C-alpha cells in the first residue's frame, strides 16, 4: 500500500498544530511560491489534469468548477473564494481534523485557489461549534499576514488577497453553497436558484467559488508534486488520498487518511478495530447522514465516488456510521429524519412539509403506533422528495437513508407495525 499521507503528515495526534516557521521548515508555502510563478491558467490546468474531485460531498471536478470563472482584465471585480468549513452533517467530522491539525495547510491551499481564479477576497466559513479550530485559524491567518503570504503584493508577485474568517451561528443548510453565499451577505441563508451559477454571479453579484476544506487542503500538494504524483496515490480511478472516518459501535472510532479506494471492510476491520464486543455489523451509511445504507454484501465495495455510487449509495463525506445488530434501524432512521425535519430551511413546500410528516410516521412506528400502509406512505414520500422535486439537494439527501432502510431492513419496519412495539428496547 502506498504509505504517502500528504494531508495529515504534519498532524500530531494530541499535539497542537505547527506554527508557521515549523510549517515552512517542512516545505510549507513552497507550493504557494511555485504557484505564484505559474500563470493562474497553468494552476487551473494542473488541477484539471490531477482529476481532483471536490471532497464536499458531490464530487464535482475542482478544475472544471474553477473553469467557469470569468478571467482576464474585463472580469467583474471583486472576485471571491470561499472555503466551506461548515461541516454540520451528522456523522461527519473529518474537516475538523484538518482545521485543528494543520491550519496553515488549508490557508496555503486557499491562497493558491484564490490565485487560480484571481480572487481579491477569500473567506473561511466556519461552523460555530469548532471553537478550537477557530482559535488556531485566527492565529494562522495573523501569521500568514505577517509573513506576507496574505495582503498586498504577496511575496512581491503583484497578486493581492485579503482573507477573513466568518464564524457561523449554526444551521446545516449554510453548508449548501448558495445558502452559504446568502449567509455571507447577511441574508436569511436559504439556497438560491441556479443559474446563475456562483462562479459567474455569487457573492454580491460577483464571481465566487466555494470549495470544501479537504478539497482545498489537497491543492498545495498537487501544485508541489504534480498531477501524476496525485494520481499515483490512489487505488482506484478517483485520484488522491481521502480522509475517511468511522463512528458507531466500533472499537476505535476515528478518522484516517488513506488512498482513495480502500474497501469498507478494511476501514471497519483494520482501522476502526472491528465491532465492539457483543455487537455485530448490520449496515453502514458510508458518507454521512444523507447517504443510502449499504449492508454486508457491500463490505468489499471500494470507498471512491464511482464504486459507492455503483453500489447504490454515495461517498458523500467519506465518514461512515455503523448500524449494529443491537440498534433499531427504524430508530436510527427516525433519529436522522428528526435531524432533517429540524434543519429543513423551509423555503420550499415539499421539504418543509414532507420531512416532518416522514418524521411523525417513523415516530409512530417506533413507538408502536404504526399502521398498515405506513411503509407505502414512506415510500411515496421518498419518491416525492427525490431528485428534481425540491429547490435544493437537501431533501433528496434526507430521504436517502430512509429509502435504503425500507429496502434492506423492511422486516424491521413490518415487525414494528405488526407487533405494535420496538423489539430492540
Amino acid at each position, binding site marked *: 500500500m502506498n504509505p504517502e499521507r500528504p494531508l495529515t503528515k504534519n498532524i500530531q495526534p494530541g499535539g497542537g498544530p505547527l506554527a508557521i516557521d515549523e510549517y515552512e521548515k517542512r516545505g510549507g508555502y513552497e507550493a504557494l511560491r511555485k504557484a505564484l510563478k505559474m500563470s493562474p491558467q497553468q494552476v487551473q490546468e494542473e488541477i484539471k489534469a490531477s482529476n481532483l474531485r471536490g471532497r464536499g460531498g458531490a464530487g464535482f471536478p475542482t478544475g472544471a468548477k474553477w473553469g467557469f470563472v470569468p478571467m482576464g482584465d474585463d472580469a467583474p471585480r471583486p472576485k471571491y473564494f470561499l472555503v466551506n468549513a461548515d461541516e454540520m452533517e451528522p456523522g461527519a*467530522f473529518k474537516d475538523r481534523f484538518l482545521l485543528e491539525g494543520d491550519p496553515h495547510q488549508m490557508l496555503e491551499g486557499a491562497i493558491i485557489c484564490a490565485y487560480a481564479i484571481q480572487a481579491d477576497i477569500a473567506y473561511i466559513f466556519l461552523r460555530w461549534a469548532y471553537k478550537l479550530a477557530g482559535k488556531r485559524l485566527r492565529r494562522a491567518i495573523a501569521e500568514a499576514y505577517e509573513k506576507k503570504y496574505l495582503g498586498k503584493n504577496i511575496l512581491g508577485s503583484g497578486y493581492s488577497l485579503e482573507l477573513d474568517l466568518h464564524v457561523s451561528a449554526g444551521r*446545516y443548510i449554510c453548508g449548501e453553497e448558495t445558502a452559504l453565499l446568502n449567509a455571507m451577505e*447577511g441574508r436569511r441563508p436559504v439556497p438560491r436558484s441556479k443559474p446563475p451559477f456562483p462562479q459567474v454571479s455569487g457573492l454580491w453579484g460577483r464571481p465566487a467559488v466555494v470549495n470544501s476544506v479537504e478539497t482545498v487542503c489537497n491543492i498545495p500538494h498537487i501544485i508541489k508534486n504534480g498531477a501524476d504524483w496525485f494520481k499515483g496515490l490512489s487505488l482506484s480511478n478517483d485520484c488522491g488520498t481521502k480522509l475517511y472516518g468511522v463512528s458507531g459501535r466500533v472499537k476505535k472510532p476515528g478518522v484516517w487518511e488513506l488512498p482513495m479506494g480502500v474497501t469498507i471492510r478494511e476501514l471497519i476491520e483494520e482501522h476502526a478495530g472491528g465491532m465492539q464486543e457483543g455487537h455485530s455489523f448490520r449496515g453502514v451509511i458510508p458518507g454521512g447522514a444523507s447517504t443510502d445504507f449499504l449492508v454486508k454484501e457491500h463490505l468489499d465495495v471500494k470507498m471512491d465516488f464511482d464504486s459507492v455510487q455503483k453500489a447504490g449509495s454515495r461517498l458523500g463525506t467519506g465518514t461512515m456510521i455503523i448500524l449494529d445488530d443491537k440498534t433499531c434501524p427504524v430508530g436510527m432512521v427516525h433519529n436522522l429524519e428528526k435531524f432533517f425535519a429540524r434543519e429543513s430551511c423551509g423555503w420550499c413546500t415539499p421539504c418543509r412539509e414532507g420531512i416532518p410528516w416522514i418524521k411523525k410516521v417513523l415516530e409512530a412506528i417506533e413507538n408502536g403506533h404504526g399502521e398498515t400502509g405506513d411503509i407505502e406512505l414512506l415510500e411515496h414520500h421518498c419518491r416525492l422528495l427525490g431528485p428534481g422535486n425540491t429547490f435544493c439537494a437537501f431533501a433528496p439527501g434526507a430521504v436517502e437513508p430512509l429509502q435504503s432502510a425500507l429496502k434492506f431492513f423492511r422486516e424491521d419496519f413490518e415487525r414494528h407495525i405488526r407487533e405494535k412495539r420496538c423489539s430492540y428496547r
Partner: protein
Amino acid sequence: MLTEEERKEIQNELKRHSHKQAACVEALKIVQRHRGWVSDEIKDISEFLEMTTDELDGVATFYNQIFLKPVGKHVIRICDGVSCWVTGHGPVLEHLKVSLGINEGETTPDGQFTLLPVSCLGACDRAPAMMIDDELYGDLTAGKIDEILERYK
C-alpha cells in the same frame, strides 16, 4: 438600548465589511455575548446594519445558536446526531435530565444551566458528546457527567 460597549464592538465589526448587512450575524453574536441572549434590542442593531427589523429578525430566527429567549449561566448542548444516538445518547440525556431536574429546552430554577439539544457536534469519534459553553466533552458516561457538572456549580 445597546450599551456603549456593544455599540463599539459592532462598529468595529462593520469596519471589516464592505456591505454593512454582512456583519449582522456577528452583531447578533456580540449582543448575545454580553447578555446571554438577543432580545428586542434587535431593533437597535438593525439601524446600524441598514436592514429592516424584519430582515434582521429573519436572520436571527434562522440560526439555532442565536438565543431569542434567556438562557442560564451555562448552556449545555447535548449532541443528538446519529453517531451519538447509536452509541448512547439516550442514557446520557436521561442522566442529564435527572441530575439537573429539567427537560431539554429548559433552564434550572437557579438559573445555572440550560439544556439544549444540538444536531451533531462533529465529535462523532468521541460519541456520545456534549458541549458546555465553549468546552467539548466526549466519550460520556453517567459517572463522567456528574463529575463534569460539579465543576460548573
